[in-house]
């Protein structure tokens, strides 16, 4: 009995040994190219894929193959999300000892870098990024991109125009770029007082808008204050057709897909004054009529693989007729402008290389008539830039390029002999000017992300002595550092020296070199419910005819979602702006102690959406007159200004704006009705001084009085 048991045990152990010896165990370790362990990777046989295993948390795997016969000609496959599958011929390796497997990220994952390459290299140093939806949802911006910027604390615009003025600098230092091409004077109807303003950009075309209120990235040139970088759509999600009608405009906008990779957008507006002026008779006293017709087209296409073309063209014709006060002359002023500008972008990318060719043209003619002044300005601008970006890795990008901005400005002017005598009978003389210039530049920009939370940028831009230019030599330099921490907070530090050449206009007929040194520190806090932005900056600007300017500013912005339907924000900018020479500084015109803006937005689609904003600031400074001298030859008085420059201040600016809207759905279409009241309390906010004939008494011209605007828009899908 004992012997039988023993035999059984021996037979059992032997059989176990046979089974054991037949099983092949393959062991190894899996990592990526950086040496990080890859856990939970599938490891299985290609032909017998039910035999498999998964790597453990340290990247180790063990695969048991029960039948050694199947191993001949078999491949061991490793696969994992985001990595190229790896196939190892088992006949070619010694699998009896543990071996190492290195997996590489798949090409599609690497293509992410190419997608990254399409984006602006400097975007992480922008303090505000607004996509189309944010523009639409910006309270009281009326879906106008540049109006949305005017609501930011960094906007220190004191003139109720859409031309951006950022952090105390004048508009001629700030540039708006569309797809990398500068857009001169991005506003239409800028000469019309009393009905607000309209930028040239249709939000339907916009993908992203980056705001750099100071320290503009040196991948773009010719700006020494801030800049706005607008990118148009690269992909159209849906066809969309809109028809709008309001007190002053009718418009259409159609966005149509041509294929998966191409689309076209077309829009146009007719602006007229009759309806608006009859509803707002108070404004009618100054503004007699205004008209504008515009048409825009945007075409996007991937011509061949990796090559995309975007073409944008915009034409506008506008005119206005209003009462104007200049010195002591009050008369009708007529203006008319026709303009066409286009932007073309050709982009090519392959692997980590990204090349773009950007071209822009701008042709315009402006006529202006007032008293004894007649002015015809003709403007031709051509812009060209070639840019190359290389993405070493997701941590390091470089970009370099060349650009040239050609300007041809002609002025055919009849101007007063005595600048203060403007009646049609007062003497005038012909003054024609033709100015041409090229501004060739080269630049380099490096963006490095040494750690996940730190991003460093460095840029330089230099003029080139080509094309027989007479521009002074200059070098612009900048560095930016961004530190992201605690998931919701960022600190941003920027410092730099910047240069730009102004465009001539009828009051300053020259290309003038402006420079600025800037330093800024920003703090950004962003959660779902609350946003806080703080900024402190210092700027020293030189080159303007009025002298050098020193600007110190501090901004605070707090936005909070009180409930799902109620959102409030408050912002304030403390601005200290002085002009003059090193010996003596004066208050700058915009040395405004505070710019306070408070908004409240109530969102209840079932009932009504309401936005209200209260803006208040100290008045601007102006230089008073000390006396006047009579000139009997022209029967006008010569104003004699006080030596105390900008020693008087206008009264405080105060306005409350209200906007209401409601949508109705009809099948797949929607109809929106909207209304807005500007300056609800009809506050009289002084804008400029109006003198009597001998300058002995003064009254004021005011910013926009109370006005009502309403309309509707039909959207079809």
């Amino acid at each position, binding site marked *: 009995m004992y012997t039988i048991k023993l035999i059984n045990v021996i037979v059992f152990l032997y059989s176990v040994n046979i089974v054991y010896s037949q099983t092949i165990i393959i062991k190894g370790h899996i990592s990526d190219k950086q040496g990080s362990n890859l856990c939970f990777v599938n490891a299985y046989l290609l032909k017998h894929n039910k035999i498999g295993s998964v790597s453990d948390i340290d990247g180790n795997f063990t695969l048991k193959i029960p039948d050694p016969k199947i191993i001949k000609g078999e491949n061991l496959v490793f696969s994992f999300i985001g990595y190229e599958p790896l196939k190892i011929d088992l006949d070619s390796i010694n699998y009896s000892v543990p071996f190492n497997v290195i997996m590489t990220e798949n090409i599609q994952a690497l293509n992410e870098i190419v997608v990254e390459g399409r984006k602006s290299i400097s975007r992480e140093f922008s303090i505000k990024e607004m996509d189309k939806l944010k523009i*639409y949802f910006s309270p009281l911006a*009326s879906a106008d991109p540049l109006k949305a910027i005017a609501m930011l604390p960094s906007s220190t615009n004191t003139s109720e125009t859409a031309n951006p003025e950022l952090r105390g600098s004048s508009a001629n230092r700030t540039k708006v770029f569309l797809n990398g091409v500068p857009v001169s004077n991005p506003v239409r109807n800028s000469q019309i007082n009393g009905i607000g303003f309209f930028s040239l950009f*249709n939000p339907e075309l916009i993908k992203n808008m980056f705001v750099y209120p100071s320290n503009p990235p040196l991948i773009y040139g010719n700006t020494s204050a801030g800049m706005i970088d607008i990118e148009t759509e690269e992909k159209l999600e*849906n066809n969309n057709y*809109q028809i709008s009608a309001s007190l002053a405009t009718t418009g259409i906008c159609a966005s149509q897909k041509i294929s998966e990779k191409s689309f076209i957008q077309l*829009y146009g507006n007719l602006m007229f004054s009759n309806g608006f002026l009859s509803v707002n008779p108070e404004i009618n006293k100054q503004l007699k009529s205004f008209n504008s017709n515009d048409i825009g087209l945007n075409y996007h296409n991937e011509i061949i693989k990796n090559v995309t073309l975007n073409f944008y063209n915009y034409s506008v014709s506008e005119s206005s007729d209003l009462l104007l006060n200049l010195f002591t002359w009050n008369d009708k002023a007529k203006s008319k402008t026709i303009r066409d500008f286009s932007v073309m972008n050709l982009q090519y990318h392959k692997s980590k290389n990204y090349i773009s060719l950007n071209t822009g043209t701008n042709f315009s003619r402006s006529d202006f008539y007032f008293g004894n002044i007649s002015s015809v300005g003709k403007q031709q601008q051509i812009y060209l830039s070639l840019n190359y970006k290389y993405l070493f890795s997701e941590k390091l990008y470089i970009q370099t390029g060349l650009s040239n901005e050609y300007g041809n400005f002609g002025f055919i002017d009849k101007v007063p002999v005595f600048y203060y005598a403007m009646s049609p009978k007062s003497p005038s003389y012909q003054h024609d000017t033709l100015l041409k210039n090229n501004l060739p530049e080269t630049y380099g920009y490096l963006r490095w992300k040494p750690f996940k939370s730190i991003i460093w940028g460095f840029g330089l831009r230099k003029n080139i002595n080509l094309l027989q230019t007479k521009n002074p030599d200059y070098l612009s330099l900048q560095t930016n550092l961004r530190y992201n921490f605690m998931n919701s907070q960022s600190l941003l530090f920027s410092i730099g020296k910047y240069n730009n050449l102004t465009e001539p206009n009828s009051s300053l007929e020259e290309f003038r070199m402006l420079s600025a040194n800037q330093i800024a520190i920003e703090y950004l806090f962003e959660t779902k419910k609350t946003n806080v932005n703080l900024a402190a900056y210092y700027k020293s600007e030189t080159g303007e005819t009025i002298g050098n300017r020193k600007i110190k500013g501090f901004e605070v912005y707090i936005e909070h979602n009180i409930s799902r339907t109620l959102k409030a924000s408050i912002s304030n900018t403390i601005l200290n702006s002085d002009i003059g020479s090193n010996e003596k500084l004066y208050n700058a015109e915009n040395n405004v102690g505070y710019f306070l803006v408070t908004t409240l937005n109530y*969102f209840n689609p079932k009932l009504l959406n309401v936005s209200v904003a209260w803006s208040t600031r100290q008045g601007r400074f102006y230089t008073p007159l000390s006396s006047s001298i009579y000139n009997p030859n022209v029967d006008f008085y010569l104003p004699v200004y006080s030596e105390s420059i900008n020693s008087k201040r206008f009264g405080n600016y105060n306005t409350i704006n209200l906007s209401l809207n409601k949508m109705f759905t009809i099948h797949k279409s929607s109809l929106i009705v909207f209304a807005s009241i500007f300056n609800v309390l009809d506050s009289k906010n002084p804008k400029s001084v109006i003198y009597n004939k001998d300058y002995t008494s003064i009254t004021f011209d005011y910013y926009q009085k109370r006005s009502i605007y309403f309309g509707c*828009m039909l959207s079809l899908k």
Partner: protein
Amino acid sequence: MIMKTTLIYLVFSIFLMNSIKGNIRYSEKEIIAIKESHSGSLKSIDQNDTVLINIQEKVLDAFVNGKISRSDKGLVDLEQALLNLDKNNKNGIIIYWYSYTCYYHSILLMIEKENKSSEKILDEGIMQLENVSNLNSEHLALLALMESLSIQYASGIEIPSIFKRVKQNAEKALQLDSLNLRAYFVLGSNDFYAPEQYGGGKKATSYFTKAIKLNDQPVVNPYLPSWGKNSAYEMLIRLYINHKQFAEAKKYYQEAITLYPDDYMIIKLSKELLNY
């Protein structure tokens, strides 16, 4: 151009109302039914077991248990266990499952009307996912799913942006892996609840149809996600019922019930199809 703001405001209000219902797949009654139809025994976290094996099932078990017991302890324990596994917060797969647990935890708290806690845990899950250094296709699909749930707690003004982010992340997930059915499911769900005025409702059928044709996983791996296909079936059938295309609805119901005979939500659809 002026005041288009309103269009988007209002369109998304409809989206908001629908999505509140849409994101929570299970009502209170349904949870109980799921529990009854759940064939496997509900497991607690066994410290001797490797937490990550069949983690998806464990999360669902903890969620169902939590609903029955009206306690989130099971999910909290799972979250803690996952955090303990990866104290440095560097392992992308563990972060994935931690966020996935947060997603169900958030839904559980939402059902219990603890909205503040629900929002907080959802935000935590989203934040952890966003911080993964190399987001893969599965991370992005889950992120899109969680962002779509976050619409519950967003103010009306923010909803369009979240809606857009959901779409972008799901599309990105597909760029990285065109066979990821979960990305198709999230895209379909997003489109399903988006109002027609904003282009919604046009592509849901095609997204769900793609999702159901794909495998749960390319290779069966108990550590990786396999969710989404049953939900895609359910929503596809519901879509056909809504459009009164009952023949199609029945066809997909037959497929679904064969694959998921115990899925309460799919079983429930049979009642709606009975009369057609």
